[in-house]
């Protein structure tokens, strides 16, 4: 014990306000010199009562509510939610809607992983990677705006189908954009594999062995980088995922390097899925949604493999127009705590990138800022929405797709 007391332990706070993670999470690193000997995680700064709110809203309104849980996973939660409600109703959605749903889900995965890759570069002090990744992400978001109506929060999901159709020209636009994306992904992968400095920083850092990953219930890329072969899209197929060819990348190292490589490979698989879905969409005729009269009493589970892992929605219905109980489990909730194992024993710089490698959710989809002064116009929220719509329509009109 006396030896224990002699150790000079300093506390390094990361969060709730910290340049590393601009979101309300608090990591209390206990360090001895540069070595991390302990970690306390505090979350729950941003409780918004979404589950309770859902109990007071109509099933269609809940869809928009769950879309606002996260800015980046703005399709994952609605995706899981519609899966859930459709299970209660025992509904089978039209083929066309299945393909469109898969396209939306995979577009989100690509842009989310791209965002993560850029941020990972930033956390390593490699701002060039940051800017380049986000530049490559931009055409994808613009494509989303053109075809789904918005860069984020597309509101494509609907109980019983999808809200907007993608025509043949739209499908071709997806194929074209994906073909343009592949060489960029190759370039990024090569850059990461060949850079000795990057490898020196990422290898071994924040290793999470399979055993620990299982006991922390890690999901998504975190689990797959530690050798756990899980993916909801394959294990319990929904939408069009069982109708197209793709594989689930798995690595066994469990370090940050493996997590990076898994995400790069997943983007490549998403490109494959989108291309196949877009082709199939041209042949699939029919409606994009079915009418649904009411949700019968019962229980349902909806799952979706979000970019960060499995999103889980549970709904208990007692008939009527509102859910009786709505339970949500987001992937970050499981993944963040793996840090307790992965960070301890490493150094502070390793801790910074390991904490970020979990890819906790960010809500950062602010689009525009109006500045007062110097005779400039100040926009009201109504005007901002109008400007936003105008831009989207002009994008749709000009060079259509």
């Amino acid at each position, binding site marked *: 014990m006396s030896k224990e007391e002699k150790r000079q332990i300093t506390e390094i706070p990361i969060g709730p306000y910290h340049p590393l993670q601009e979101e309300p999470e608090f990591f209390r690193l206990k360090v001895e*010199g540069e070595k991390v000997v302990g970690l306390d995680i505090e979350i729950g700064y941003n409780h918004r009562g979404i589950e309770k709110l859902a109990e007071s809203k109509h099933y269609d309104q809940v869809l928009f509510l769950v879309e606002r849980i996260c800015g980046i996973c703005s399709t994952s939660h609605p995706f899981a939610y519609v899966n859930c409600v459709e299970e209660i109703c025992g509904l089978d959605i039209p083929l066309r809607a299945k393909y469109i749903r898969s396209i939306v889900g995979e577009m989100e995965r690509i842009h989310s992983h791209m965002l993560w890759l850029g941020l990972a570069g930033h956390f*390593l002090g490699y*701002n060039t990677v940051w800017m380049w990744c986000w530049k490559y992400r931009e055409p994808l978001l613009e494509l989303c705006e053109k075809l789904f109506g918005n860069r984020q929060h597309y509101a494509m999901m609907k109980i019983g189908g999808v809200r907007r159709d993608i025509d043949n020209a739209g499908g071709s636009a997806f194929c074209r954009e994906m073909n343009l994306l592949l060489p960029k992904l190759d370039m990024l992968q090569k850059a990461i594999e060949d850079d000795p*400095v990057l490898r020196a920083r990422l290898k071994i850092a924040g290793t999470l062995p399979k055993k620990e990953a299982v006991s922390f219930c890690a999901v998504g890329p975190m689990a797959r980088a530690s050798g756990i072969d899980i993916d909801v899209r394959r294990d319990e197929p929904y939408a069009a995922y069982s109708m197209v060819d793709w594989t689930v990348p798995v690595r066994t190292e469990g370090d940050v390097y493996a997590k990076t490589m898994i995400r790069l490979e997943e983007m490549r698989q998403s490109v494959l899925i989108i291309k196949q879905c877009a082709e199939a969409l041209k042949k699939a005729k029919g409606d994009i949604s079915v009418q649904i009269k009411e949700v019968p009493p019962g229980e349902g589970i909806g799952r979706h493999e979000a970019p960060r892992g499995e999103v889980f929605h549970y709904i208990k219905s007692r008939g009527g127009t509102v859910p009786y109980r709505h339970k949500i489990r987001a992937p970050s909730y499981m993944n963040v705590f793996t840090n307790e194992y992965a960070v301890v024993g490493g150094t502070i710089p390793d801790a910074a990138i390991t904490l970020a490698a979990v890819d906790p959710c960010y809500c950062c989809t602010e689009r525009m800022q109006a500045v007062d002064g110097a005779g400039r116009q100040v926009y009201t929220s109504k005007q901002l929405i109008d400007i936003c719509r105008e831009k989207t329509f002009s994008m749709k009109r000009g060079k259509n797709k």
Partner: protein
Amino acid sequence: MIIFEYFFYPGILFALVVSLAVSWIDRKVSALVQWRVGPPVMQPVYDLIKLMKKETLIPSGASPVVFLLAPAFSFAALGLVSLILFNSNLYASGFIGDILVVVYLLVVPVFSLIMAGASSANPLASLGASREMKTALSYELPFILALGVVIIKTGGALDIGEIISVQRLSGPVIYSLSGIIAFAVVILCFQAKMMQVPFDISEAEQEIMGGAIIEYSGPPLGFFVVSRWMLMALLPLLAVILFMGGIGSFTGVIKYIAVLVIAILIKNTNPRLRINQTLRLFWGPVTLAAAAGVLLALLGL
């Protein structure tokens, strides 16, 4: 006369103007590498004016005298370095300054940062100070060995004016094998001295939020920021003096900007190293390369 030279031309004021320009070049080139537009020319000036107008906060528990003197020391020492380096370029003869004095003066900013970190009463600041100390320990040895190459190649010249005039007469040091090795070593060491990626471990914004300067605000922070910009302006100049015969004409300016751009490109194409990796890099391969450079120089290569 010497007071005028120290405070105005080519001392503090001149160095300030040059470093503002250099910092703009840094930001503009970084922006171009990163597909951004970059700031307007006057941006560093605006930043500096803004900092000077802000309030100075001294954390309770900090030692105010050390806390406030640290940035002043850093700034004053770099003003003197600027005086010596620019004067040597202008006159290139007679005794103006000794290379050893410059080496000593260039350590002062490091010490002021350590002082700043140690007096801030903040765990992150003391961590930054300890990292800064380790970084300085790692790069000083290869840097001085590489200086040895220059001194040997210029026939034992220690005076900067002499180093320049010898090179102008008999060709720059970099035209030899040992000169190239020493130049590469010096560029790496300067990257660490300038606290740029991959060696900006002591201030690592994403890990320890600025390290030693975390508690600084207002004018003291302004002096630290200007010190960094001045380092960024003066170290490429020193490299040009040591290896390419200084800035005598227009081509000299181009050489200077080329060295500066090399440093900026290194910064923009690398992630940050860990402190143990930095130590291993500088004490291992870099020191060995510098020692090999000295041997080659002794052999006359």
